[in-house]
């Protein structure tokens, strides 16, 4: 097995666009689930709206890349309002059912051939990079060192992704350290009690859904920036992966989702490299290398179960939170 190559790939994944995208999506989900207690199972839908909004903005409306990105964010805010107004009166588990359905409806709308000209149906959308690449201030060439050696285009994607992530972290951190965040956490604990204290609970939940949704959509855009928009990505398992990253780091923390996404992707890369290599080297004789790739996802599922059972507050979560059973 080529351990150097495996280590290099794993280290490289620390700042891969996918990691940054997951970090943004998990941060958005932290606002929904960790701070507001909204069991949103449709985070993949928010990411899809961001990615499709960006691609459609460029391909169909001919917008420059930044205006298209803005379109993706606005579209996700509108989606959050449409989703939230009828459903936020529901209790936790019912909200989960509705949001999972809404994300699937959205995905199927993008997949259907009826809007093929705009959404590209099963082929997805691609070839929207001209405006984004033209805006790149970095001169042509390869930069970086060791495992982090990328071309200028790849750096431009990563830099913008990191900027978006930092902005999102500052916003969420500010919000949650403020009285606004206090109300939100109160709603997570018991919304009736907060209502009895004169707070417009519905308004807070709707705002939280929009804020988290926009951050998750930014994640979708970062995911789409370097490559293409593929409807097969925004499936329900994406929601579960983002939840895994979130719970790994700590749901009710600001940096937890970021750390969680990082660990999630590094682990994915390690497993994705090690398992097939192990099969080839004959360590896993009962398995083909395709099966080894699938084993990766089985291990992710097991990891999610173990976290929820043994460390529900995540890596960065407050240990005291574990002491109390709700």
């Amino acid at each position, binding site marked *: 097995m080529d351990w150097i190559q495996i280590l290099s790939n794993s280290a490289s994944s620390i700042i891969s666009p996918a990691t940054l995208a997951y970090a943004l999506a998990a941060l958005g989900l932290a606002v929904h689930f960790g701070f507001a207690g909204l069991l949103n199972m449709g985070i993949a839908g928010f990411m899809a709206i961001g990615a499709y909004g960006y691609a459609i903005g460029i391909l169909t409306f001919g917008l420059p890349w930044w205006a298209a990105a803005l379109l993706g964010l606005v579209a996700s805010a509108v989606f959050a309002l449409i989703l939230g107004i009828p459903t936020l009166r529901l209790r936790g588990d019912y909200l989960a059912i509705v949001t999972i359905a809404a994300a699937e409806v959205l995905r199927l709308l993008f997949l259907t051939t009826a809007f093929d000209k705009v959404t590209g149906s099963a082929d997805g959308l691609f070839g929207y990079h001209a405006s984004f690449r033209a805006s790149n201030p970095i001169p042509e060439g390869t930069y970086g060192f060791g495992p982090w050696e990328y071309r200028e285009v790849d750096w431009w994607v990563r830099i913008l992704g990191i900027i978006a992530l930092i902005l999102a972290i500052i*916003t969420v951190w*500010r*919000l949650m*350290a*403020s*009285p*606004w*965040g*206090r*109300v939100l*956490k*109160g709603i*997570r*604990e*018991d919304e*009736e*009690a*907060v*209502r*009895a*204290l*004169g*707070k*417009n*609970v519905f308004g807070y939940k709707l*705002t939280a859904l929009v804020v988290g949704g926009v951050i998750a959509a930014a994640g979708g855009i970062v995911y789409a920036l370097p490559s293409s928009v593929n409807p097969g990505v925004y499936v329900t398992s994406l929601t579960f992966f983002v939840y895994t990253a979130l719970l790994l780091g700590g749901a*009710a923390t600001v940096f937890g989702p970021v750390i969680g996404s990082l660990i999630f992707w590094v682990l994915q890369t390690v497993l994705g490299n090690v398992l097939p290599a192990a099969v080839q080297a004959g360590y896993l004789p009962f398995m083909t290398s395709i099966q080894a790739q699938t084993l990766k996802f089985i291990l992710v599922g097991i990891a999610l179960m173990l976290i929820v059972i043994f460390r529900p507050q995540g890596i960065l979560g407050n240990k*005291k*939170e574990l*002491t*109390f059973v*709700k």
Partner: protein
Amino acid sequence: MSSDLTAPVAREKTTGLHIGDAKPGVAKTDPIIIADGVRRTFGGLTAVDVEHLEIPRGAITALIGPNGAGKTTLFNLLTGFDKPDSGAWTFEGHSLSGVPAYKVARLGQVRTFQLTKALGLLTVLDNMKLGAKGQVGERFWQSLFPFLWRKQDHQIEERAFELLKKFKLDEKSDDFAASLSGGQRKLLEMARALMSEPRLVMLDEPMAGVNPALTQSLLEHILDLKDEGMTVLFVEHDMHMVRHIADWVVVMAEGRVVAEGDPISVMKNPEVVDAYLGAHQEIDLGVVTGRYPAADAGKNKASKESK
């Protein structure tokens, strides 16, 4: 025997609250809540059917009645947590029909819950600060700029500490509310409600599950509320407590108001005794169930009172 005698300082009852005979729906000299024809049904069951009810301002009113009498439902209706089938009610002249719960609370009518709702994974101090009204930092855009709300937040914190000291919870201020005992949570919920500077405090069974030592201090807190100019309406099953602190008693049964009056006379009302108190209210439970002869129970009680 009267529990007034055992209180450290017996405080004066507020009198002269009503106009005319004390009967159900009697007019008050200065009502804070006036309800008319409030009716709520759950399927075939009429939970609340109140023709007319006035709650006197600046006094402590007890709402009593057997289980299922509709006391909590009436509470929920008056505070906007539930919607009636019909009826109208006003709070300090504002019509509250159809007004959502959070707006009712903003008007100065705050409630607590029968099953205590402490916000477990918030600290005691955060619980308290949440109660304050009109916080700049609770608005979305303003919350992003701490210099806009920091000063107000400090003032709120000071007020929260004052109240916590009064309720003897100040040492717990950094603990999660989930770590408090049941009685402490009741205190916290009441203190939190007071953070909103209400004019009417509605307490749903404030004494349920609270030990006798804490009961005494809770009673004092409730009496203090009146001294500070607040009106109190509370649901309670403990008749000694009702007699001790209530200035006015409203008795409900099967959704209706069946009697009203000052505590002493209401509890002598034969209808109330029949519907709720039962004939054995002054007798030791052991006597009722036949475990002790009546004479022994009397002796026990006499020795207790002499202490």
